[in-house]
């Protein structure tokens, strides 16, 4: 408390002396008045931002003086000008399409991942700063249409338009993130602090990156490496009351005077949290410790460049101890008990059940500009380890029940050509060699088998610029080969080899209008080969009282079958996304409608009850069906006055199992968010303060599968009946939790102190300390969500 007071006094002191309160804003557009989002806008000396979806950039709390403004965007001539602060009006930057080949220095511009005809949304700048201290998955919730599948307060997986895990591709610094993403409690192993912006592509057209993008793509982009001499950096600090959590992240970067074009960056993050708490009790064993770092260096010459990047992500996290159950009756007891079993006073200690996960990424990429086009090649090496510890007998507590290592090598090559002023094309090759090993010594039959995976893909995309229309298309072919070695329920070994191949295509068009609005349509067909877990899973997952069987396990004998003898087809999706957006001084709005029809959607379906020595158990089997996802994302921001703006965000989704005329489980319920932002300058030249209040309403999921309670299962079983024998519709043990309403508030300001910028944010979430449960949190059977949390974030940029 004392520290907090000192901190505040110090802030006031700084505020009182600050004379730097000017704002510089403007828009970035093409000659055709098409607004450019994601352009890199630098104000030298000092700071850099990206233009937002509406092409708008903004620098706040500037000191008076002369600055150099530099705007860059791939495919356009860089823009440079001297600007005076205070400026008399908003700037309008027009970028001119580059006629010659790209300038080398900015070739690794991060927005090459996104085509103009994609439906995408970016999290950067202040919005990204506001998510500091959250995990990647949780941060992405700020984007309409994105939600999460959660396991307790520490594990968040992004869900795009109702799809997640193997159906979402995450690109970490240009490399396909390859972890054990099949598990619903396996969060992406990425430190969000490495990103200067995070893009979510909501359509399935990211054809350059291969299979699996049925739901969409998350692109995590670090900022460009500096190319000019000098050292800069930033330090982020976040303290949170819930979980008594702290985050410290630092970054240092610089360029070299001696070696022109050489830039480097080192970055590291530490996070620690103890047990989180609901309004009424502690969520025991939900703490986590995380330590991440990355190192990057690059050399960029006139016509070539090379980059090295290494990052490590390492976490240990606890899973709510009260969710540890080993029979259906345990599940009933756990669901009826509140607070959960094993609830104890707050601690930072992490016990079983827990996870230890590490992810290492090494990337080398080079690019070359020739008269025949631009060539790019990148190699990525990923080493992922995952240990899951359960509550077990005796000394088994110290050895993991699941112990996996995943080694992934990727090699990508790409050739980009500007055939004419109107047409450009891109062709490429992706290869992957992956090895998954169960490390011996778990003393349990492995949940998924060992496997080797060879995959390759070829793609071609073309882009046609027809002034008001921008059209692009792409085709791709992928091949994947699996060699699987595992053990069945009786610990008998099995081996199999399979291959899968298929084509994908995409088509997109953008129509820009003079009134700063645009219409984007995108139709894409994508597919994914089955994941080994869907074919061979065997066992009980942490904290869910259900046995999971892979698609290839025989229904009566449990023996592993040959893929060719079962009715299996590759999962394919046809996704059509249309969006319209507008941005002017008063209004920013975006309306997106989508339909995604997934053929042979592979999911866990209740299939029966088996009796073990521990009692009766429902079992779920991976089954295929046709599923549809129909939804709308709405976003609107209205600037009522220069000080006051109102923001609304709505995400609606209905998902349906078409084959079985049934609902699917864990589909995010409809969300409605309303925010208000108020800006005020302190004194005449003081720093600007912003206050924001947000109300979030999440409806009950009314399109949920039927409920079959544990008592019904046990009673039926007691009467020698199988409750799922004649009715294998999807079910849930509990009805979806009721709708909830959350309030949050935040206040922030940024202050210049010489060349150092300080951004301060105080954020209070779940302000009313409401007790509620989230439908898409797997812990909802056992405990409430976390209660009120107050976070203080500080960011120093220098």
């Amino acid at each position, binding site marked *: 408390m004392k520290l907090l007071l000192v901190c505040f006094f110090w802030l006031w002191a700084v505020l009182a002396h600050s004379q730097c309160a000017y704002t510089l804003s403007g828009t970035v557009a093409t000659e055709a008045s098409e607004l450019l989002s994601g352009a890199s806008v630098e104000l030298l000396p000092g700071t850099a931002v990206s233009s937002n979806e509406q092409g708008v950039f903004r620098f706040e709390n500037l000191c008076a003086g002369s600055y150099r403004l530099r705007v860059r965007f791939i495919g356009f001539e860089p823009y440079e000008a001297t600007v005076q602060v205070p400026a008399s009006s908003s700037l309008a930057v027009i970028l001119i399409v580059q006629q010659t080949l790209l300038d080398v220095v900015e070739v690794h511009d991060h927005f090459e991942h996104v085509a103009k005809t994609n439906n995408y949304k970016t999290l950067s700048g202040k919005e990204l700063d506001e998510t500091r201290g959250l995990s990647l998955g949780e941060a992405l919730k700020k984007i309409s249409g994105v939600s999460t599948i959660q396991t307790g307060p520490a594990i968040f997986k992004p869900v795009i338009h109702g799809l997640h895990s193997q159906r979402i591709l995450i690109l970490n610094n240009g490399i396909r993130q390859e972890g054990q993403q099949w598990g619903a409690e396996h969060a992406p192993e990425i430190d969000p602090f490495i990103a200067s912006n995070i893009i979510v592509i909501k359509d399935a057209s990211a054809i350059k990156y291969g299979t699996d993008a049925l739901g969409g793509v998350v692109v995590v982009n670090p900022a460009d490496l500096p190319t000019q001499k000098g050292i800069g950096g930033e330090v982020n600090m976040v303290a949170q009351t819930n979980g008594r959590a702290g985050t410290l992240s630092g970054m240092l970067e610089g360029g070299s005077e001696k070696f022109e074009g050489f830039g480097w960056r080192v970055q590291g993050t530490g996070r620690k949290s103890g047990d989180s708490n609901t309004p009424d009790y502690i969520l025991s064993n939900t703490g986590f410790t995380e330590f991440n770092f990355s190192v990057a260096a690059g050399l960029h010459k006139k016509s070539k460049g090379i980059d090295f990047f290494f990052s490590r992500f390492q976490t240990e996290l606890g899973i709510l101890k009260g969710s540890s159950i080993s029979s259906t009756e345990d599940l009933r007891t756990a669901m009826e008990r509140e607070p959960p079993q094993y609830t104890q006073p707050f601690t930072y200690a992490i016990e079983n059940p827990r996870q230890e996960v590490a992810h290492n990424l090494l990337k080398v990429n080079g690019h070359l500009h020739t008269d025949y086009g631009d060539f790019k*090649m990148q*190699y990525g090496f990923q080493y992922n380890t995952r240990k899951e510890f359960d509550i077990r007998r005796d000394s088994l507590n110290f050895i993991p029940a699941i112990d996996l290592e995943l080694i992934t090598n990727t090699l990508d090559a790409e050739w980009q050509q500007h055939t004419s002023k109107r047409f450009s094309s891109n062709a490429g090759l992706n290869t992957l*060699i992956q*090895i998954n090993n169960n490390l011996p*010594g778990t003393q349990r039959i492995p949940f998924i088998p060992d496997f080797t995976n060879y995959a390759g893909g070829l793609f071609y995309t073309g882009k046609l610029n027809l002034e008001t229309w921008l059209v692009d298309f792409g085709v791709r072919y992928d091949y994947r080969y699996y060699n699987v070695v595992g053990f069945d329920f009786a610990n008998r070994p099995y081996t199999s080899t399979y291959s899968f191949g298929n084509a994908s295509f995409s088509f997109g068009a953008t129509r820009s209008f003079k009134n700063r609005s645009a219409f984007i349509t995108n139709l894409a067909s994508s597919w994914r080969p089955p994941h080994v877990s869907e074919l061979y899973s065997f066992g009980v997952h942490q904290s869910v009282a259900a046995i999971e069987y892979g698609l290839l396990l025989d229904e009566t004998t*449990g023996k592993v079958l040959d893929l060719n003898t079962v009715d299996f087809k590759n999962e394919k999706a046809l996704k059509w996304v249309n969006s319209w957006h507008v941005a002017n001084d008063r209004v920013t709005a975006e309306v997106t409608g989508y339909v995604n029809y997934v053929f042979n959607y592979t999911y866990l379906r209740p299939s*029966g009850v088996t*009796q073990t*020595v521990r009692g009766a158990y429902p079992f779920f089997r991976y089954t295929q069906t046709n599923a549809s996802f129909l939804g709308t994302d709405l976003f609107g921001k209205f600037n009522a006055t220069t000080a006051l703006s109102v923001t609304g965000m709505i995400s609606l989704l209905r998902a349906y199992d078409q084959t079985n005329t049934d609902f699917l489980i864990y589909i995010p319920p409809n969300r409605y968010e309303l925010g208000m932002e108020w800006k005020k300058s302190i004194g005449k030249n003081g720093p600007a303060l912003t206050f924001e209040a947000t109300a979030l309403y999440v409806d009950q999921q009314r399109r949920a599968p039927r409920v079959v309670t544990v008592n019904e299962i046990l009673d039926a079983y007691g009467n020698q009946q199988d409750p799922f024998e004649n009715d294998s519709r999807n079910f849930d043990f509990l009805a979806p939790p009721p709708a909830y309403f959350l309030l949050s508030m935040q206040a922030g300001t940024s202050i210049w102190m010489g060349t150092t910028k300080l951004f301060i944010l105080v954020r209070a979430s779940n302000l009313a300390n409401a007790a509620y449960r989230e439908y898409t949190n797997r812990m909802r059977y056992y405990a409430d969500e976390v209660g009120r949390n107050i976070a203080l974030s500080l960011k120093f940029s220098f």
Partner: protein
Amino acid sequence: MKTFLHVLLLMAVGALLVFTGCDDDPGKENVPELITEVTLTFTPAGGGSAVVVTATDPDGDGPQDLQVDGPITLAKNTTYVLTLELINGLLDPGDDGYYITEEIEEEADEHQFFFRFSEGVFASPTGSGNIKDTPSTPVGTINYLDEDDNGRPLGLSTSWTTDNVTVSDKSFRVMLKHQPGLKSATSTSLDGETDVDLTFVLHVN
């Protein structure tokens, strides 16, 4: 420029080769936690042949159901000592972990057996046992013959005296709970995790 491209290519291909040679032969795991066989032996205190019933689940979490033999047929007015034996049949009898009973004895302070039976079958214990459905379920006592280091009951060995009645098609349920850090003077069958939960048919002649 060309050499640059070559270097890139070589580097990438080289790296691919380095990391591909590690496809190892997976080792078979011992699975000491799996209980595939539970044997109940009712030995008459006054001598005579024991009543033995077994529940077997050869595929563990596999889809095949548990095989329960029985019924348990006890004689009237007789005192029996019930001993329990737990085996992991996926291991060989010589292997560590085959006799799970031994491990439970070693960890007696974290384990307890609970029982439920049809009322009126036994003269001692009376009632219907100590398995709870809800925290408010009333429970009876069980004649535990063994205890852990803290003096709390374990239940690998228990004593049962049948009443002087002939009954058939009654039930007898055995539950083993793993209660790490939870076993206490007040812990019940609702605490911890279930390792065993079996129900047998019971006759008394």
